[in-house]
């Protein structure tokens, strides 16, 4: 009975934090008004820099995920800047609630925002880079987006919590996050290439990379829920 009550409390905290983060985004519209245009601009700038349709089609997968990761930094910093202003994070901490629930709530909210971002980025790649995808490729692409953004959501929340409220967090966050998300960049790029059939890649080749993305998400989901509390509990 007691265990059930604790689980219910955790779920309520996680959903409250999740709704709070999405409500802040719905009211401030930072992702829609600033991050999405920024990510779209990156896609356009890539096209200017590479200036070759064949090359763009071949590297479209990598460009989508690079734009996602660059946008991740902005979303994470924005999310934790709100939480640390007026000591909102401290209030959550001293309220005595389970911090792993806060972690999951924030991570799922971040994941949803990243999925929305990726839908736009993939749409932009279809328009700007003239990529094509088969029906089976769509299934792989959707699975890849869900698994990769879940991993990015967990790891972004974890390291965002660490750098929240510290001096130089704008530079420290990319320094800490980029090496950690490298496996996501590699695996998601390869899976996307397989889904799009870039460079003659077969769709079946992509599922192994989705497996790697799932392992990454699981490792940082478990690790993050254990580590988030000690990281911000100061």
């Amino acid at each position, binding site marked *: 009975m007691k265990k059930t009550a604790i689980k219910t409390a955790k779920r309520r905290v996680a959903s409250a934090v999740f709704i709070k983060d999405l409500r802040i985004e719905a009211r401030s519209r930072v992702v829609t008004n600033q991050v999405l245009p920024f990510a779209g601009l990156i896609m356009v700038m890539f096209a200017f820099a590479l200036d070759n349709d064949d090359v763009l089609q071949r590297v479209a997968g990598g460009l989508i995920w690079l734009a996602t990761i660059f946008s991740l930094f902005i979303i994470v910093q924005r999310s934790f800047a709100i939480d640390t202003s007026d000591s909102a994070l401290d209030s959550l901490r001293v309220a005595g609630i389970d911090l792993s629930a806060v972690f999951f709530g924030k991570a799922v909210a971040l994941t949803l925002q990243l999925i929305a971002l990726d839908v736009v980025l993939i749409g932009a790649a279809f328009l700007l880079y003239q990529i094509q995808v088969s029906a089976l490729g769509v299934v792989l692409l959707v699975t890849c987006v869900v698994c990769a953004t879940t991993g990015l959501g967990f790891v972004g929340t974890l390291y965002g919590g660490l750098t929240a409220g510290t001096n130089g967090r704008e530079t420290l966050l990319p320094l800490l996050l980029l*090496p950690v998300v490298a496996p996501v960049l590699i695996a998601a790029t390869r899976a996307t290439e397989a889904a799009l059939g870039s460079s003659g890649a077969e769709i079946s080749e992509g599922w192994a990379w989705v497996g790697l993305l799932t392992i990454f998400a699981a490792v940082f989901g478990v690790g993050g829920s254990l580590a988030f509390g000690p990281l911000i509990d100061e």
Partner: protein
Amino acid sequence: MLSQSAPKFSSTGTQATRIVGALTIIVMTWVLISGLVLTPADVVQGESVRIMYVHVPSAWVAYLAFIVTAIASAFYIFAKRHSLGFDRVAGASAEVGVMFMVITLVTGSLWGRLTWGEFWQWDPRLTTTAFLLVTYVGYLAVRRLDGSVEQRARRSAVIALLAVLEIPLVHFSVVFWRSLHQRATILDPNGDVKMDGLMLFTLFSGVVGFTLVFVWLILHRQRTMLLSDLANQSGLDAAILARQNESVSI
């Protein structure tokens, strides 16, 4: 709050560190002479094989250092008494590990230029090793964040435990992805040694010598960290006392 009292010693050396230091000098002198003069050139690689006597031991020490950092961090986090001694060992080991990882990458690049014709190849092991280096540079940056020594210890311990997850990725990257990197040449899968006896002994001596350098550096560095923490703490105490005296005099 630091539990240690003010140090009675004026240097970071002890009898033990002097013995380790003397042993290090002897072993490293032997490695230098044997590696540069006594050992023969390789049939295929020529004189460039001598880079191996630095590259392999420094890679070993870098990985050892990161493992020590992870173990010390785990002791700090999970031990009942969160001893800052573990945190200092973890920090000292990471600093030394980063230094040896840089040496590994530089010597590897030099060897690659002579063997592959390029300073850098996007080989999985090379790439992930570079990522590992950046990860520990990030760890050291976390150690320099604002806050008390306890905050520093807790943050960096968690980061070290997460960072160690990358070491298996480095190791198995050779298996997962097609690799250009030199495969294990000392032992084949059957356990047979495929190397000239003196070359093998010099390489082994290098591993021992570099490990001694690592131990010597760790012993001194963690003591300088202790002195630094104590100096910061006493400086803070003195500042608080000065403010209190000011308020009393007013």
